[in-house]
Each structure stands twice: as C-alpha cells, then as structure tokens.
C-alpha cells in the first residue's frame, strides 16, 4: 500500500489562542440558523433548509428503485409466474413461500402455477434477488415502499395482493404463447 505522509499544519499564534476560530465557527452556525429561520417564512423558495417534510413532500423514485416485490401479469392477463421457486431459493431472508400446483387442463405450454404465493414483508430486505433470479420475468420490485399496517398478518402479501401491486407488464417472453 502506498503511504503518503501528511504533515501536520503548524498553527499560527492566532489559531492557537483559539478564540478567533471559535468565533468564526459560531458565526458559521448562526448563519445557518438564521438561514433556516428565513426559509420558514418562504418555504417554497427555501435556500438553506434541506430536509424534506415527508408526508407533505414526497420523493420521486427513480426507475431502479427497489421497493416491495410484486408479481406481474402479461398483456393477456395471465400470470407469468410458473412457480419455479427460484426466488424462494435465492431469497436471503427466506421471505418468499410458494405452494406450486399443476393445471388441471393441458391446453397450454405451462404445466405449473403458484397455488399460493406469499411474501412476508417483515422479512423482506428489498435486495431484489428475486427479480434477478426470476427466469420468467414475473416478479419485480415496484416503487411501493410505504408499507404500514397495524396487524402483522397484513404484512404477509398473498398472491392477490402481489398481483394487485404488480399489475400488467407487457413483455416478449410469453410462456403461454410459445416456448
């Protein structure tokens, strides 16, 4: 490792007496103090204050934001998930549980579907591995990040909730149509 020796700066007498610098520091903080005071009266054109007043002001999430995972349907309204359980396998906190089942009819390319699909949002760490692992591009992390419930049970997102959050996503990969 390359080391660089940094010389300690020699303090001048004025600096060593300390008072001037203390006063300088005090002036700096009071400048910010009055800056925020000013902002309070003209919040729209705020200059100094930087915090966002959350419920009134909200973030504009970027597209790669990792919120809650959700299942999507294709443009024909059929579920893309084939219950391969790769997400369940890759999920580091083991938040995903899938109960696969077999279609009663044989009129499509897919034989398997998730009978139940549950994501325990109390375990989920929003890592996005499920989205990466999914071979069918059926699970995505959506921008929904404000999960507030008063009952622990509500944090377990079932299939209905996951599809409601995910909605429809147009895609070329259509396991139903062709292989």
């Amino acid at each position, binding site marked *: 490792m390359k080391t660089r020796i940094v010389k300690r700066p020699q303090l001048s007498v004025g600096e060593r007496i300390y008072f001037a610098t203390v006063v300088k520091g005090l002036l700096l903080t009071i400048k910010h103090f009055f800056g925020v005071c000013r902002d309070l009266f003209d919040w729209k054109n705020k200059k100094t204050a930087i915090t966002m007043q959350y419920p009134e002001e909200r973030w504009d999430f970027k597209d790669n934001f990792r919120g809650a995972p959700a299942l999507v349907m294709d443009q024909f309204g059929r579920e893309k998930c*084939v219950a391969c359980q790769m997400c369940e396998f890759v999920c580091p906190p083991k938040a995903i549980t899938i109960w*696969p089942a077999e279609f009663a009819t044989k009129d499509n*390319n897919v*034989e398997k579907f998730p009978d139940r699909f549950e994501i325990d949002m109390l375990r989920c760490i929003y890592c996005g591995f499920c989205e990466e692992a999914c*071979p069918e591009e059926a699970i995505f992390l959506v921008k929904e990040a404000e999960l507030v419930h008063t009952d622990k049970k509500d944090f377990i997102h079932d299939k209905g909730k996951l599809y409601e959050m995910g909605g429809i996503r147009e895609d070329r990969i259509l396991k139903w149509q062709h292989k």
Partner: protein
Amino acid sequence: MSGTVNVTVDGKQVAVPGGLNLIEAARYAGKSVPHYCYHPRLSVAGNCRICLVEIQGQGKLQIACNTRVTEGMSYFTDNERVRKAREGIMELLLINHPLDCPICDQAGECKLQEYAVEHGSGITRYAFEKVRKPKNVSWGDKVVFDSERCILCTRCVRFLDEVAGTPEVGLDMRGEKCTLVVKGDGKLTSPYQMNVIDLCPVGALTSRDFRFKSRVWFMHFTDTVCTSCARGCNVTVGSRGDRVLRMVPRANPDVNHNWMCDHGRLHYAFVNDETRLTVPRVAGKGAPYAAAIARAKAILEGARGQGILAVASPFMTNEELFAMKELLDRLGVEDRFFLKPMGEGDDLLVHPEKCPNARGAALLGFAEAAAEWPSKEYGALLHFAPHEGADLPEEALKRAKRRILFSLKEREADVCFPLTTWIEKDGTVVSAGDRLQRLTKGITFEPTLVTERTVLDRLHASLDASHRPPDTAAQALARLAAALPAFAGVTWTRIGPLGMKLEATGAPA
C-alpha cells in the same frame, strides 16, 4: 476379460481390470467422462455421443462407453478436440430442448443442466423454430413423459427390457419426430416402472407422485433402508420440512443394485399422515410421557403374578427389540412373540416378508406367532402393533386384562404409546440374507414424539433404578453386540452405509 491392463488416461498411467470400458477405466485415473445413455447396469447403446474420447492412434473420436481397454492403450478425455466435440454434442442435444427448467422436476439433478455448464458453449446457433413434441404425456398413474425434453438415450427402453423384463417402451418415428412410445394403450404396467424416472438423465420422465412437490435443492436427503419388505433396498429419502416427499434407490451392489420396486418407493404416506398419534393416551385421554410410563409401570407390576404377554413387531429395530428384551428379562416374561406380515414376492427385489426385521426379531429371541395363540389368560399385554398387515386377533387382545399398546393410530388400550416410523429413528435391521443394515433418522415428525427405544428404556428405568440405558443407537448396538453371539463384533461404523452380512448366524449368502 481378466487380469489387469495398463492404460494411459490423459497422460496418466493406470492399471485397470481388463474388459472395462473407457468410462469406467477413466475413473481409475480420477477422470470422469460425461455420459447420458451409458449406465453401468444396462447394455451399451452408444447413441448419445457425449462420451467421445480421443484414442491415440485412431483418427476419429470414439465413444468411451462402447470401447474396451486394451493393453498399452492411451486416450484423452479432456483435450481440445474432445472438448470441441462435446460442445457440439451439447449444442445438438439442446437444439430442440424446450428449456423449461423452471417447471421441470429434474432441474437440479439434470445431466443436461450439469453438462451444459461443464461442457456446453453457452450459445446456440440454431435460430429456427423449435420442434414441438407431445408434452405432459401420461404413462399411467406413476410416470409422466415429456417428449420435448427427451434426448432419446433409451435408458428407459433398455431398463424395461433387460432388468424389469417387461419391454413396453420403444422409439417410434425418426429424425426430429422421433419419440418414445409405450406399447398398447400407452400405460406402463411394470411394477418397477418408476426406476426409469431415476434412470432418465433429463426431465423427460418424471414422477406423478413427486410432481411439483418440491425443487430438489430444497430437500434434505437421508440415506437409509426401505422397510416395505425384508429385502431392505437401500434408499435415499428426500424430505422437506419434516415431511417425506420421495424415495429413490441408492446403489448397493449386494442388495438392490440401482433399483427398487414401485410399491416400496411410494410406500411412505403413513409417515406423513397428519392424524397419527403424537402423544401417549392413557385410558383414551392424551397424557404426558411421564404419566403414561408411570401407568404402564403400574400395569406391568400389577400383572406379574398373572403373567404378561409380549408381542413385538418386525418393524422394530434390533436396538428397540433389545431394549424390549431387557425389559422382559427384568419382568421375567416368557411369552414373547412377534407377528410377521406376509405377501407376494417376485424374482427381482420384492420379498414375501412384508416387514424389515422379522429375522432380527427371531435372532433376539422372539417367536413367530403361530396360528393359535396361547389359550392362557394374561394379566397384561405389551404389544407393538405392526405398521400394517397382520395384527393381533381380537380374541388374543381380549385375553389380557390390561393392554399397553404401541400404535401409529390411536387404539383402545389402557396405555397407548405412539409409534415412530422408520425414517424418524436411527437403528439397525436384519434384512433378507441375514444382512445387517442401518436406518438413519431423516425427519422429526413431531417434536413431542419419543422413540420406542427411549420409552422402553424409561419404563425399564422406572422399574429398576439401576438400569442405565444407552443414549445413541450406536451405543445400543454395542450393548446388543456384546450380549448376543449372533451380533458378535458388530459396530455401528462397521456396518457402514451399505450394510454387512451377519456371518455368525450361518445363513446362506
């Protein structure tokens, strides 16, 4: 075919038995040659071409499975030419593959997946529409066939012809249309048909029973022994979340080779039965083990004068039987029997004795119950109900004033202890041909369940405070081996995963 020959594999000289093919010979040099159609227990077909090797002095690459070693032969399993050939074969095999690994039960133990990673190039140059073939074809109620995944290795064809003796499957059509067909109405009839599922190197043949139950990587695997008959086929049990999901044979050249019968393979539902008894019952009410054991002790002590009838089960391990024997010795019980369920057998694997350890029970001094029961009246009955099949006749049960039962399901008794199944405990059984084999604990059905050996030992200790029961099955076996000449010299490690023959019994091999 005999003697050893010297061959050079990838520049490494090894001496191998004569008559070996190049795949087996390469193993002596620590090399593995990929193969789909070749199976050591089936005839050589040589149609998958993935095992191509370069033999020095021969122009073209040769298939390793159908070439036998000769003195001084030198061949390469891993040079540039061979790798390129394998890459080409992999690309060819995957041209029409549907790539439906997400819904394929074979995923995770699929040779196509493994070799695609090890030997494939990762790309395909084939840009045309893939061939469609029948998918999800039912081959009866046990096997599901998917023609698109099939690589036409004919392992299944050869197994049913050569091993099971029921040639039911063949290849039909040719070229891209080539597919497997089943004779007649398209349903398999062989009682060994499910072995084709294990044999199939890809996901073309999958089990109806195991279908979509679990991905293999979620499962916990336990090497143990099948208890459906006295053959004691070596098996690997796959479980997830303390429920058994499937059984597949485990290779043991002395017992079952690589096979097992469908009945044994599918015979595990009673393990997962949620209505099983999980806590002891005293007079029809649930009770803690301590209370049940105290009640059983009172019954046994009260019945000493009037005689006690002991009926063991051939589903018990040797260690459990020995614990019972020790208890009965303490109580001075003479009448010791066991009930042996019988059924049909066949020439291949199925044994007519439908229990795993009838021989062990006999060796431990229990008499096979005769058609007629002793007409005596007993003060108490200590009875281990077999998991299935023959149980004590009603009048025999009634002959005892008080009954202590061990049963899978709740039954009418003074004390009824729950039984544990073979996959829930360690122990040994004596299979056909006096072969001592190990059972291994794979699941815990209910944390409340206590194995029979522990119950017996605790009962024994409550009668006699000096009784120091062994902790593990291995310790119990050591105690048993010290006490019985038939088991002399046997230890847990000596039995090993493949079992051993009990020499001291003098039975024919």
